[in-house]
């Protein structure tokens, strides 16, 4: 046993909370060794153990007809019927992306791919949630460029299409960007491999890349606020190799298909110690790891460095001793390392050896189950804001251009065209679209995926923002004819030990739970990233929601915009939206003074979603999208541009403050629908029968641009010429 740690005498260790050292000593009945202490520092960190968030996550509903695997595994699994499952998960990589954006983002993608892979699923789609600062800020622009390049470089090379995502711009992301990556994979439900060891005596096999010093201490790093001197953190950022990942995916799936893998755990945060201990602890077993058997990238690594290394492109497999050679042969074919680094033990202990010496010997439960931390939340955050004064009569066109050129609304081709969205040849509907649609092999039905977030709302009301993001997901899915089956979430929040940070955490979880229950969408897994704070303060509290839906029949290609001149435009749902938190309010009153939308009427949301879903499935609506960021104006503008057409809409004469709510309002329950005149009549009849509001808006025209009339008066006509005045009014 190594000597008792000097550090053990200290009162604070990275990743640990005050009082933890005493708890560890009491649990062990002795002082931990230096190596052991470093293991606790990783395994008891917020990043690995969810100590502040775990008690709250029980509030989320996790049961549902389509849930084949809920939270607790490396990813959730949704039952698609016919024995097929879709594994999915979203995860953050904000801290690394703030330090080294390209590698931080790339390894974020690599990590989420392995989460899905570990269940035996072949990754079929990626989505990304990005948050950046204003383009005028040189550092923010550098971070944004690096993150987008990193996502693309990795996803493109491994051959998994990036089919959708969301990018939002707020000053709070300027020097601490948001990178949430979501992956979905297909797996036969009777071939799922779980993250639990099978039985004592099995071999723990490390498959993939060699182990180096990169990322050592990453878990505890991601559980701290980032101080100003971030370059000193570079060694804690991992480096990705998508070429190795591609081979790792193929090798892992090949070994699984041959029935050689009894359990599997991806190696993410806290590398070997986390994966080996989690795999065995889930089964109530223990393990012994021989660190001398780990193939190393560099000489002279200490035991704790090997245990904590976050070198990428590695998987941990539970393999029957008789099958080790067969797995090694597969690894050789793919030029990967396969090393038997340990064994599963019946005794629930975690033991590691280095140079023949035991360097760690810990009760498994003590290592893997740190006590939850208590929260002391302040009052529920909700900042009301008065609506901005309506534009003056001659000002509407300028305000419209300001909304349309706002970076949250403007086309994101410079992001999504950097990602291969068509590889694997199953993307029926890719970017730009509210929801992506994938075909399924040999089937006529399909899967719809969406990843959403509304950080601008969260500045004023994180509860409403989280709830509305679930609503947005439901609406995006309905727009392509899909009903939601489940969701995966990623909470990106600040320091939970502060009253404000804790209040935002509680509000976000409560908002999420409320909407999930009200709309019947279970949560199958997710990720919590706390301590998202930089020198400039807390990152905007951001809840990313990745939702999975099923399209009963993918027929033809779903229209991606307004394509037929003369077709009728309809607004489903309330005529007026919410001005609070809207891009319009942000443009007029600033991000901090924009407020947030009210909480939705969930029953109305469900009714409207059912109506739009049905309209798509019956072919009554050629196109549908939800009215969200940028309001009705942006919805019509985007749909027209995507289809290569223009539109003319006519609003009833009404007071100017109500006109702003019609045109720019956001919030729940509204959709834009395009249909032929005949079908539009049928939609109106059906809406009347369903007790739903449906308002005629205008029609699709051949000439590009968007004309908005109020009765006989032309309010404005935004044409391509007008649009070229890019940047004007973009920021106040």
């Amino acid at each position, binding site marked *: 046993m190594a000597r008792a740690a000097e550090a053990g005498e200290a009162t604070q260790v990275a990743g640990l909370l005050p009082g933890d050292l005493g708890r560890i000593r009491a649990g062990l009945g002795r002082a931990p060794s230096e190596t052991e202490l470093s293991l606790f520092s990783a395994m008891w960190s917020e990043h690995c153990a969810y100590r502040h968030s775990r008690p709250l996550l029980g509030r989320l509903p996790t049961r549902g007809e389509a849930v084949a695997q809920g939270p607790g595994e490396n990813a959730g699994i949704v039952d698609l019927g016919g024995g097929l499952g879709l594994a999915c998960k979203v995860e953050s990589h904000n801290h690394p992306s703030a330090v080294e954006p390209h590698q931080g983002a790339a390894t974020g993608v690599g990590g989420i791919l392995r989460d899905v892979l570990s269940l035996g699923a072949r990754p079929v789609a990626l989505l990304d949630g990005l948050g950046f600062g204003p383009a005028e800020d040189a550092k923010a622009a550098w971070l944004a460029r690096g993150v987008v390049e990193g996502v693309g470089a990795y996803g493109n090379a491994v051959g998994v299409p990036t089919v959708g995502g969301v990018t939002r711009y707020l000053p709070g992301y300027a020097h601490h960007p948001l990178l949430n990556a979501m992956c979905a994979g297909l797996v036969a439900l009777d071939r799922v491999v779980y993250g639990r060891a099978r039985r004592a005596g099995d071999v723990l096999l490390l498959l993939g890349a060699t182990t180096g010093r990169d990322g050592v201490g990453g878990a505890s790093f991601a559980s701290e606020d980032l101080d100003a001197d971030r370059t000193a953190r570079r060694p804690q950022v991992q480096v990705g190799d998508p070429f190795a990942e591609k081979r790792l995916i193929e090798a892992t799936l090949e070994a699984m298909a041959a029935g050689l893998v009894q359990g599997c755990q991806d190696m993410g945060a806290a590398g070997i110690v986390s994966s080996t201990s989690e795999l065995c602890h889930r089964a109530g077993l223990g393990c012994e790891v021989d660190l001398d058997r780990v193939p190393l990238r560099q000489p002279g690594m200490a035991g704790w460095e090997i245990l904590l290394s976050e070198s990428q492109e590695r998987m941990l497999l539970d393999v029957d001793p008789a099958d080790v050679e067969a797995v090694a042969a597969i690894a050789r074919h793919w030029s990967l390392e396969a090393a038997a680094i340990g064994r599963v033990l019946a005794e629930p202990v975690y033991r590691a050896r280095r140079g023949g010496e035991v360097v760690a010997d810990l009760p498994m439960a003590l290592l893997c189950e740190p006590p939850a931390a208590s929260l002391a939340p302040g009052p529920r955050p909700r900042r009301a804001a008065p609506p901005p004064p309506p534009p003056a009569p001659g000002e509407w066109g300028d305000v419209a251009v300001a909304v349309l050129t706002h970076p949250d609304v403007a086309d994101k081709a410079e992001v999504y*065209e950097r990602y291969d969205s068509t590889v694997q040849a199953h993307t029926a509907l890719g970017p730009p679209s509210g929801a992506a649609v994938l075909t399924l092999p040999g089937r006529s039905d399909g899967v719809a995926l969406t990843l959403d977030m509304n950080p601008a709302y969260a500045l004023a009301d994180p509860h409403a923002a989280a709830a509305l993001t679930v609503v947005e997901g439901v609406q995006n899915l309905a727009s392509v004819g899909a009903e939601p089956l489940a969701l995966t979430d990623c909470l990106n929040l600040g320091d939970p030990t502060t009253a404000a940070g804790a209040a935002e955490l509680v509000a976000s979880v409560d908002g999420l739970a409320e909407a999930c229950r009200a709309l019947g969408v279970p949560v199958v897994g997710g990720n919590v990233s706390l301590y998202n704070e930089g020198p400039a303060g807390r990152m905007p509290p951001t809840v990313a929601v990745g939702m999975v839906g099923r399209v009963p029949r993918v027929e033809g290609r779903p229209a991606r915009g307004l394509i037929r001149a003369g077709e009728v435009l309809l607004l489903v749902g309330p005529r007026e939206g919410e001005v609070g938190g809207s891009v319009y309010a942000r443009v007029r009153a600033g991000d901090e003074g924009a407020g947030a939308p009210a909480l939705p009427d969930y029953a109305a949301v469900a009714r409207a979603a059912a109506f739009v879903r049905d309209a798509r499935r019956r072919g009554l609506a050629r196109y549908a999208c939800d009215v969200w960021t940028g309001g009705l104006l942006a919805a019509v503008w985007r749909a027209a541009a995507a289809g290569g057409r223009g539109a003319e809409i006519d609003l009833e004469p009404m007071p100017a403050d109500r006109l702003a709510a019609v045109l720019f309002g956001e919030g729940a329950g509204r959709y834009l629908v395009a249909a032929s005149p005949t079908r539009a009549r049928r939609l109106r009849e059906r809406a009347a029968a369903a007790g739903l509001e449906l308002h005629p808006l205008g029609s699709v025209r051949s000439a590009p641009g968007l004309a908005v009339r109020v009765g006989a008066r032309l309010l404005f006509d935004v044409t391509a010429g007008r649009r070229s005045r890019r940047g004007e009014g973009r920021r106040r």
Partner: protein
Amino acid sequence: MRATVVVFPGTNCERETAEALAGAGFDTRLAWHEEAAEGADLYVLPGGFAHGDYLRPGAVAARSPALEVVRRAWQGGAHVLGICNGFQILQEAGLLPGALVANVPAGFRSRWVALRPRAARGAFGRAVGGGRLRWPIAHGAGRFFAPEEVRRELWRSGRVLATYEGEDPNGSLDRIAGVVDASGRVAGVMPHPERAVDRRLGGEDGRAFFLRLREALADGGEGDG
């Protein structure tokens, strides 16, 4: 008609390419690069990042034993098609003229593009047909580059397979999207026909390409004239 899809470490379009070929009636097999053998009528080098694009896209694969197999098969009368990274490999191997360099404007581009067939000779010319095509592109180094005299010769001898129509996606000289070699039996295209084989995915022009290719090979590899 037997088709072999050669798979290198880092290749990532092999599955859909094999499916597209099988869907068009080819007797298709995937061959790991170390196990590729002669005997097929068509060799397809699919898209991806063979050998991780180390050094240059296609550079390592072009110098691998698999390319010697492909070259011998071609000398024996087989046809060879490179798609995206496969096109890059065939150029690096000297089987196709020119070079594929970094896009202008720089950066990876993924989108559907329109293509105009240019009545090239041989089976591949017949396969692209005469009408406008829509296939997806997804590449960062797809800018066709060749000295002017080489391009003049390509045009003169009917070896430009297709050009980009509409918005220029990558700055290719003469907007060249695909070429064939002097024998007419080796072709390279940057866009992905295998991703355009299902109406639900946005188009079937790629399916038509593979169907006509099989017919042309069945007719002895001759073009329309």
